[in-house]
């Protein structure tokens, strides 16, 4: 247990610095959110209609940024060997790594999500739901991204490959989260979409580490 706490602290610290850290992801997110009114036109009615969905899609893209190096660096510098040679099951180690990624990148992005949505003209009353969706969605994005990052270990341009692998897996959380936000904006019941988003996020937490550990073992041997 002791060693897993130490690993979580280390992974969070490393994720904070990886690929420029959360500030770069948040800046990218802000940039994409700023493009939308420039491309679609600044009329508030039109923007307000797409604001929650647009903020949600931009979040998914921004969360891809730092995933590339999640396993790659440990694989290259030998840390992955040492992480495997431990009484801690590799699945648990992978889970901790993704949790660190989520705490250092997913959480700051989630905090930026309501700001972006309101900036685009979404109803401020939707901010708590946007934050909750972004936190849960970010959890799913981190664990799905971990699968992609582990599968693309050893590949040239692994980051691009990671994105191509995980984008299809991002579809369900995009639909559930976007659906919940749209329903809330329209005054319809939104708990269904939100619950499905939560279920999907928890499923990725449960299943993702098994896939990541298998992919890591395969890459090492």
């Amino acid at each position, binding site marked *: 247990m*002791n*060693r897993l706490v*130490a*690993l979580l602290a*280390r992974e969070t*610290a*490393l994720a904070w*610095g990886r690929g420029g850290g959360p500030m770069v992801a948040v800046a990218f997110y802000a940039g994409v959110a700023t493009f939308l009114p420039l491309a679609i036109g600044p009329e508030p009615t039109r923007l307000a209609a797409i604001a929650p969905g647009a903020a949600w899609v931009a979040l998914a893209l921004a969360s891809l940024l730092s995933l590339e190096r999640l396993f790659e*660096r*440990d694989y*290259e*510098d*030998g*840390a*992955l*060997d*040492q*992480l*495997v*040679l*431990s*009484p*801690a099951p590799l699945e648990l180690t992978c889970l901790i790594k993704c949790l660190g990624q989520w705490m250092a990148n997913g959480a700051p992005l989630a905090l930026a999500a309501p700001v972006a949505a309101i900036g685009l003209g979404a109803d401020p009353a939707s901010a708590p739901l946007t934050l909750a969706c972004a936190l849960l969605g970010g959890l799913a994005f981190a664990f799905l991204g971990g699968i992609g990052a582990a599968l693309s270990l050893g590949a040239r341009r692994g980051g691009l490959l990671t994105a191509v692998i995980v984008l299809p897996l991002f579809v369900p959380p995009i639909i559930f989260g976007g659906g919940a936000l749209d329903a809330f904006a329209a005054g319809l019941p939104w708990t269904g979409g939100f619950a499905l988003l939560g279920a999907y996020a928890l499923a990725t937490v449960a299943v993702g580490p098994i896939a990541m550990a298998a992919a890591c073992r395969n890459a*090492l*041997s």
Partner: protein
Amino acid sequence: MIRTLTIEDAALRRGGRLLFEGVSLTLQAGQACALTGPNGSGKTSLLRAVAGLVRLEGGAIGFGDVDPHDARGGGLHFVTHADGLKPARTAAEELAFWSRWCGGSEATAQAAAEALELVPLLRLEVRRLSAGQRRRLTMARLLAAPRGLWLLDEPLSPLDARWRETFGSLMRRHLAEGGLILAAVHDPLPIPTLSLELPA
């Protein structure tokens, strides 16, 4: 604790090429073995196979009465030039993490740092350390968390004469405490060893 290492008739294939076959070795508590052979003969691969990181093409590796899963999950140390140290973290952070990860405590990490004269270096980022200093930081794991079997890949290469001697005495102490050492080397180790030569 691992008391025996047996390699029976091992064969290993990497990237479609047969590196070696028919390699056997028995190592008992207190014994060290120098693994030699030209570049590319599979020394590192054999160490990785003992560590369970790569699978043998044929043959078997056993750890006496210790279950292989337990032996590899906390029964052995594997030290290579790929040391897993992150350049942007300080030596102190890396030492503290890796000793905890290997099952050591703060006290044992501190003792290891003192034994390897790392204390003045602990505040530096890993990127500022020389190759020899990095290797000493890696070797601190060996002392911070005692494990029976040491798998060493070119353990002496970045070390100067004085540290080669010091590391020799650390290895002697490990063997005297009933440990085992399997080391891939080009230069002879400063301790009495069995030897296993892989063919070209």
